């Protein structure tokens, strides 16, 4: 068994053990069932809610908002990172702001966004974009900084245009670092949108979780939470596997 596979098995075993422990604690009353329900009930609740079809609209609304925010963040972050890399003076100004960006609670802008953009999907998309874009920008900058000067020389020797140099050499070379930004961006977009819905919106999965919480519907709340968690883990897992394939290609011994 490879070291990698062994680590994966240990990880799964630890997680399974913790879930089992929680199940036992809930079933035996060590943890008050009004506070946390057993994981098996969470799974049952999730299946009931998702298969009932009642949440179809919320699921579509939430995940389409996340997808739009994610794609926009990738586009804006990549472009912004490239521009900052190109203009070093601008970068000198923006760098400290980027570094401290995540200390700003972007949710406080939601009322302003609603006032500006109306009570629609747009404020949530903007919230997701605001959360996710800096991660892509930072990773783009880091990726561009890491492009080997000899490859840029090669591009000149091959007489490539700036666009082809970017597309054929710079972006593929920067991709592993960019990928780390993409993974973070997905997480931040998800957090931004769900939290926005949870706190301030009247629709979407975040709102449904909030509604269940305020109605003392613990079972519903945990079922929905588990569903969001599962989707986030699966989406990140796909990116993780993709990233792993890229990394193996570049570092295979």
């Amino acid at each position: 068994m490879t070291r990698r596979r062994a680590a994966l098995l240990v990880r799964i075993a630890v997680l399974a053990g913790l879930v089992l422990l929680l199940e036992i604690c809930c079933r035996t009353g060590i943890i008050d069932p009004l506070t946390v329900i057993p994981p098996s009930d969470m799974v049952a609740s999730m299946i009931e809610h998702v298969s009932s079809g009642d949440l179809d609209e919320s699921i579509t609304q939430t995940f389409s908002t996340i997808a739009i925010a994610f794609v926009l963040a990738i586009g804006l972050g990549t472009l912004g990172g490239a521009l900052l890399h190109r203009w070093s003076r601008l970068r000198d100004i923006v760098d400290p702001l980027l570094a401290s960006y995540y200390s700003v609670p972007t949710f406080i802008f939601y009322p302003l966004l609603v006032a500006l953009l109306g009570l629609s999907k747009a404020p949530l998309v903007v919230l997701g974009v605001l959360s996710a874009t800096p991660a892509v920008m930072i990773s783009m900058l880091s990726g561009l900084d890491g492009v080997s000067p000899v490859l840029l020389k090669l591009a000149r020797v091959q007489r490539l245009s700036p666009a082809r140099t970017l597309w054929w050499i710079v972006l593929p070379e920067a991709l592993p670092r960019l990928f780390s930004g993409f993974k973070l961006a997905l997480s931040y977009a998800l957090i931004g949108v769900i939290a926005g819905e949870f706190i301030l919106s009247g629709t979407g999965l975040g709102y449904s979780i909030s509604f269940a919480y305020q109605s003392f519907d613990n079972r519903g709340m945990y079922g929905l939470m588990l569903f969001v968690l599962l989707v986030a883990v699966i989406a990140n897992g796909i990116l993780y596997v993709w990233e792993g394939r890229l990394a193996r290609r570049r570092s295979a011994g």
Partner: protein
Amino acid sequence: MSTDAGGGPSHVTLNRVVRNYEGPPVVYALGPIDLEIRRGEFFSVVGPSGCGKSTLLDVLCGLVRPTSGSVRFEGKELHGEVPEGVGVVFQEDSSMRWLTVRQNVAFGLRTSNLPQKEIAERVDHAIRFMGLVQFAGHYPAQLSGGMRQRVCIARTLVLQPRLILLDEPFAALDQQTRLLMGDELLRLWRETGATVVLITHALDEAAMLSDRVGVMSARPGCFIDMVETGWPRQRDSRIVSDQNFGALTARLWSSLREESLKTMGRVA
């Protein structure tokens, strides 16, 4: 000391080339240099560390514009752009990690208007020529340093350049591999008929491979000696056992020793 091409027609001409780097302080990197390289010649440049050998190569291929003077390739003056017909192999590994060996080799032809069939033929030939057939589907990370350098040479080869510039391409390789790579380079030179300019710090490598070796002074680099080796065109690494080989490397070292001491801050 003569820096002209001697018998053959000139392929590359440097006329009073100077290259400085803006400061402060201003760095006087190169020149003034007058040089003519013959068409089909194997010309090597040796010199102490930091004497401007790589700057000379950048100027020769058009990557860097001279501060003053002119560079002509096939009669046309260069203006800070690499002309068609010039291929460069760098000292650093410039293989693209995200492409297979075959894709790396074919990269040079991505912008060409050649038919797909001809592209495939040229790539196949370059891969075969450099002994990479078994590794065509591998990624650079799966290859040794020497093989990655062969990929870079093959990528230059598919362009069928008339002038090949090599900047210490074997610097990271062990001695045996260097000798074998030298043989492959000589074979490449003979079969393509290209003009080859090799920048190297290894005197034996320069003496073994070249028709002519230019010895550069400490910075600002100028040619202080020009050595004709007189080797036949059909040669390989076994020439190191030739009785003249020792005399050649001794002459190169004798020209270079004082300059090397200067770069170390000592006087001969």
